[in-house]
């Protein structure tokens, strides 16, 4: 990777940070306003909204200072490359999205299919997606999927008397 590419990557990282400061600033301002609507109690000097207001006010201030500090470090030309750099990062880290997507689907399926079946599908599917595919590794993945889905469910039910979701099907 050339020096120019590294600089471009660093600048894109700074823009991403800048966006995170903007996001945190907007959230803290919004939540500060929400906190002002929490009614005070006549039994105490500070109401339920006082502590959150303090936290969100400090957060907005720190986010604003961080924003001002970072924006000065980014050259104007960097903004033009931001989208291209973000897409390149997403392509490089595509397995991150595979993992998070699989986990989301798995968690949504647990109440429907039950822990055992949903875990079996998740474990086998994600292992196959991540592994170097050989007959041996696929067989191992299948065994692991059965042990950590039906096996784990059995251990929790029989040994710990903790019952994992059974699903509606």
């Amino acid at each position, binding site marked *: 990777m050339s020096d120019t590419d590294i600089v471009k990557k660093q600048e894109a*990282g700074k823009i*991403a*940070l800048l966006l*995170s*400061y903007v996001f*945190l600033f907007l959230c803290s301002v919004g*939540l500060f306003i*929400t*906190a002002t609507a*929490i009614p005070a*109690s006549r*039994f*105490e*000097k*500070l109401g*339920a*909204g*006082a*502590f*959150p207001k303090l*936290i*969100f006010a*400090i*957060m907005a201030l*720190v986010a604003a200072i*961080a924003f001002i*500090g970072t924006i000065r470090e980014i050259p104007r030309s960097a903004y033009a490359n931001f989208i291209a750099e973000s897409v390149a990062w997403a392509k*490089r880290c*595509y*397995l*991150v999205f595979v*993992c*998070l997507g699989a*986990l*989301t689907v*798995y*968690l949504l399926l*647990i*109440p429907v299919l039950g*822990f055992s079946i949903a*875990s079996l599908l*998740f*474990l086998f599917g*994600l*292992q196959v997606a*991540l*592994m*170097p595919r050989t007959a041996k*590794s696929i067989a*191992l*993945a299948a065994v*692991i999927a059965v042990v*950590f*889905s039906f096996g*784990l469910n059995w251990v*929790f039910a029989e040994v710990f008397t*903790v*019952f*994992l*979701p059974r699903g509606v099907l």
Partner: protein
Amino acid sequence: MADFLTGAAQIFTVATLIYMLCGSIAGIVAAAIPGFTVTMAIVLTLPLTFTMEPLQGIAVMLAVYVGGYTGGLISAALLGIPGTPSSVATTFDAFPMARNGEPGRALSIGVWASFFGTVLSTVVLIFAAPPLALFAVRLGPWEYFSLIVFALTIVASLVGTSAMRGMLAGLIGLAISTVGTDPIMGRPRFDYGIEMLQAGLPFLVVLIGIFAISQLVSEVENADNVRSGNALVTGAIDFQTWKVMKEVLMRPVNLIRSAIIGVLIGALPGAGGSIANLVAYDQAKRSSKNPESFGAGSPDGIIASESGNSATAGGGLIPLIGLGIPGSAVDAILMASLMVHGISVGPRLILDHADLVYGMFIAMVVASLMMLIVSVCSMRLFLRVTEIPKWLIVPVVMTCCVVGTFALNNRVTDLYLLIFIGIAGYVLRALGYSLAPLVLGVILGPIAETNLRRALMTDEDPTLFLTRPISLIFLIAAVVSIIWAVRSHLKARKSTERLSDAPTS
């Protein structure tokens, strides 16, 4: 002396020792699973002790307790995921050390530090239980609030490379702790009518999402590395038992200081191992001659965190035995177990059931010895984790995280929270935010708010925070802590600038 011998005779029976051994193994295994806390392991053990003699039952639960504090170390060192909240600081150095090719040494240092931490805390427990218990009970909400303010200044030394992002992470943690019903009046806050937010964001779900999910997902960033079948950690599977024992004992100041911090924090009701490990780590870093080595695999960091969290086991028993006040959830379960057997816990416990109290002291020492033996014998097995390829371990640990999250409250909605928090955690990690201050904020937020409001409800005069001597000492310590941290940051920045300005030869 007769009571001591009676207690010892009850502990040193074959049946009790076997039960304790099983308890120790169960504690280590349970705490090694992310999301499974020491408290949960003890709750699951409680019904099994009903048929036992009172001291036998307590001894088994103490074995689970001591084993559990060590178990959290395993996933912290090998996976970078704190198995329990009390091993958050252990991940800072144990994981980098394991990644640098020394997973056996990282585990071994942690186990020995845990052992010495527990033994030291038991010694303190035996000699200082009554005076420390009396001190702890005299602290009011003013002192607690000031203590939390001091603890929050620890954020300054956990901020990582950017002080601003570290502060923001700490504030995000504090903000997360405000969601749900408020701790004093029970008013709903920031739930927007969404049912899963009404009870607040459970701390353990936040911990698993922020640390475990984000860590696991970041492991698969490099597709070529994952597809090649590489393991999470590579290096020699060498436990180096005796060599590491000497290495730990060669750092007596750090060991004793961290154990004392653990005992003191453990003795305070409501605090416990989840704070002690961070405070002990912070103090070790501040007093180190090489603070820059912390976070990169420093043995001092592991020793501080592990001896600090293990020492809270003995510290927590101080108010329980001295005053009948449980200092933590685990102590409350131990108290419940005694009450099931018709023993009332309070200041008269040591007078009416001295054999039981001495038996508990002996059980603590025996439990820590058992933990050490179990750990030394089984670490080779645990170290096999390092040989498992990423493509296998990432989905399996994710499933364990899901089970741990669900088993907390038996709520499916916690699983939905997990995915939101996991994604947020990964985004923060990818952007270079330090995650430790965030967790500290979530832990300390409710304690700070409760005590601030309770103090002002008791007396509206805010100057009491400054006029009550212990409160003032904590506040002065907080100011000193901030000044120290700012000075260290400026020093570090100057040396970095000097290095970058230096001409390259």
